[in-house]
């Protein structure tokens, strides 16, 4: 072997190694930059380098006007098992099955899944576990820690069991004001939303905005968690004590009158604030899954805003107010009641089919004479009559901030469903339908110098730590202030003259009864009625207006018999709860 051939061999070996090295390096570069490698890197980066969390803000609270909590949130837990961490699967299965009332075999299988199948996936045992149950588990952990280690086998241990707290909706007053609040389906953690009432109407405000955040697992790359503000809270116009009192009266009235339903709405006529809105059936939103049992198909969650009915004679308030405002009649305009009047070729009679002889307009309202009111409507004429009804909000949405309001359009001249007789029947509240909230909003104009306010239940809302008050909104001036005053005086006088069972000692109220027949497939043949009463006071400075509606009362069909006493009870409670002194004392205070 010559030296030159040895060097050549060395060069050859060196060259081979160089080429091999280059190939290896080239392959490394190719592998590292391949699509698969990128996917793998991303996968590991996403799995182990950072955690993606969606933070749901705390749902906003709902308070009554004095700050009493009506809807809040309580802490519950999601309990799960991390199979790779499990030390003693039997203990876990035994304790979780006894405390959480879940199946022993299922838990045992999940706890042993890592040992048997290599399963590393987190297993959710139970969600919505109350804190008392978690306390029991914590006590067991302490107990096991204090126990001496056994000579053989694994010690009892709950290692591998985890619980994570989260909030769910809670209504501390249970069924109180549930028809106003609605409910939130908190068992659906991903797509929960509000249903009915405020929970539906203000769902977007109460829910707040969910935020998706990426949390780096590298502690040196720590980032500040973004502040996730809670959903907006609502402060209502509702007074908890008044609401509770009205609900108690509703229950008592149902029992006494055998009515299918009873609804009471209390409003401040000056601002349109709803102080109470009580109806039946009662529903506990904490147990919202009973909804279908309590509300069969076709029933209404909140009758005050959703159930349309023919109000009957309370509607006469609108007819008479319109006629006085238009200057067609005055309080002392005479009318000879013959007991019947023809409108559009059809005869209309009084409620008792009697003739009441010479009357004035106050007498017509006092005795609730259909014939007289039909005559008043005729004198007013359909154009003006229906224009006033529209202004009173009949056939229109009242604008209340509650979900589910219904409206029944009023047939007018020119509509295919309108006939001349409609003018006569509409004048005393038949052939026309409205909800209690639409009725009270319209009548409230009489108690507020002819100004109609938008009814509302939200007084203020709290957003980003600041309270924004909702200002009362004037819908329109329906009547002249003088008309409102005349009507109030007429209706107060009528109540006093009738010695109505609606009167409250020491206070002067204005009011009107109503008995509406219920139409069926064959017309107004049923003896069942809707009995109503609307009243407000004190007449010189009205602080509240109450609307009472009894659906199909059994003890009597007349509003004056069954609805007026309910008003009396409600008003008697209100003057105490609202701390309204009797008229005489109030005057003494005003002029000491």
């Amino acid at each position, binding site marked *: 072997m010559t030296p030159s051939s040895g060097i050549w061999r060395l060069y050859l070996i060196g060259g081979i190694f160089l080429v091999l090295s280059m190939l290896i390096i080239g392959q490394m570069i190719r592998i590292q930059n391949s699509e698969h490698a990128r996917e793998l890197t991303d996968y590991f980066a996403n799995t182990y380098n950072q955690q993606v969390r969606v933070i749901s803000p*705390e749902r906003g*609270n709902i*308070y*009554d*006007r*004095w*700050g*009493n*909590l009506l809807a*809040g*949130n*309580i*802490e519950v837990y999601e309990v799960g098992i991390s199979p790779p961490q499990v030390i003693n699967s039997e203990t876990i299965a035994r304790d979780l099955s006894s405390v959480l009332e879940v199946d022993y075999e299922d838990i045992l299988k999940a706890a042993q899944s890592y040992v048997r199948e290599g399963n590393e996936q987190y297993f959710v045992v139970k969600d919505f576990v109350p*804190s008392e149950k978690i306390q029991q588990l914590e006590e067991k952990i302490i107990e096991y820690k204090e126990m001496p280690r056994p000579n053989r086998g694994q010690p009892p241990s709950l290692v591998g069991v985890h619980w994570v*707290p*989260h*909030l769910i909706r*809670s209504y*501390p*007053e*249970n069924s*109180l004001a549930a028809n106003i609040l609605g409910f939130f389906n908190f068992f659906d953690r991903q797509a929960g939303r509000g249903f009915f009432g405020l929970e539906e109407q203000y769902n977007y405000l109460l829910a707040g905005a969910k935020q998706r955040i990426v*949390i780096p697992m*590298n*502690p*040196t*790359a*720590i*980032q*500040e*968690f973004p*502040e996730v503000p809670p959903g907006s*809270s609502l*402060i209502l116009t509702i007074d*908890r*004590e008044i609401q*509770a009192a009205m609900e108690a009266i509703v229950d008592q009235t149902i029992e006494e009158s055998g009515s299918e339903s009873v609804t009471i709405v209390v409003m401040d006529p000056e601002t349109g604030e709803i102080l109470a809105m009580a109806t039946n059936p009662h529903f506990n939103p904490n147990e919202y899954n009973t909804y279908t049992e309590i509300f069969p198909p076709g029933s209404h969650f909140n009758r005050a805003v959703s159930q349309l009915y023919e109000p009957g004679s309370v509607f006469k308030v609108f007819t008479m107010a319109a006629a006085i405002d238009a200057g067609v009649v005055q309080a002392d305009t005479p009318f000879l009641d013959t007991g019947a009047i023809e409108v559009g070729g059809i005869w209309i009679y009084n409620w008792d089919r009697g003739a009441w002889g010479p009357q004035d307009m106050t007498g017509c309202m006092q005795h609730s004479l259909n014939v007289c009111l039909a005559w008043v409507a005729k004198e007013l004429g359909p154009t003006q009559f229906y224009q006033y009804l529209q202004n009173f909000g009949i056939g229109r949405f009242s604008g209340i901030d509650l979900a589910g309001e219904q409206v029944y359009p009023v047939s007018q001249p020119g509509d295919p469903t309108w006939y001349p007789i409609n003018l006569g029947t509409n004048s005393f509240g038949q052939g026309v339908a409205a909800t209690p909230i639409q009725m009270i909003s319209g009548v409230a104009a009489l108690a507020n110098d002819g100004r109609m306010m938008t009814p509302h239940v939200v*007084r*203020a809302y*709290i957003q980003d*730590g*600041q*309270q*924004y*008050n909702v200002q009362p909104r004037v819908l329109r001036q329906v009547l002249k202030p003088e008309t409102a005053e005349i009507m109030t005086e007429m209706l107060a006088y009528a109540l006093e003259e009738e010695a109505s069972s609606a009167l*409250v*000692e*020491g206070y002067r109220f204005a009011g009107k009864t109503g008995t509406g027949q219920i139409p069926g497939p064959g017309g107004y043949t049923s003896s069942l009625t809707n009995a109503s009463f609307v009243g407000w006071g004190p007449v010189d400075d009205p602080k509240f207006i109450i609307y009472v509606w009894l659906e199909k009362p059994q003890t009597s069909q007349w509003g004056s018999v069954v609805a007026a006493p309910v008003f009396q009870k409600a008003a*008697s409670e209100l*003057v*105490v709860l609202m*701390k309204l*002194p*009797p008229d005489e*004392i109030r005057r003494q*205070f005003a002029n*000491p």
Partner: protein
Amino acid sequence: MIQAYRQAPWRVQLQWIGAFLLILVTVMLIAGVYLFVSAQAASAGTRIQRLELQRENLNIQIADLRTQNALHNSSLIMGERAEEMGFRPATQTDIVYIQVPGYIGRSIAFLAPPPSPPVRPTGLLKPAFQQSLWEWLYQGVFQLSEIQGGRQ
């Protein structure tokens, strides 16, 4: 003559070793500082994570306690408690009205302050807790060059 100016080989070796050790010590010092700062940052980071979690849990507890409090003060419970204590609902005849000069009545709930001008949100974490040593050095050098550039 040349021999006279050459250092002894052991001296050259010593100088090399000395220079190497100096560089090594410097690198180790920097690495040590870096490790120390990184460890502190990591420790602070984990603490922040724990505190964030704690804050989240405390918010949940506050919400829960607020509702628990409302449960104990609910209309029904309060009514029952009042009845147990011998109270009954007042009626019209029970009430004596007295005029109190200046008293304007009960005002509605104010659970939060009224709206005020918007405040620019400021982060709770200082930048120092979010920077590595290199980022800090780089930023420092960058700021220095900016200042000098500005002087020119």
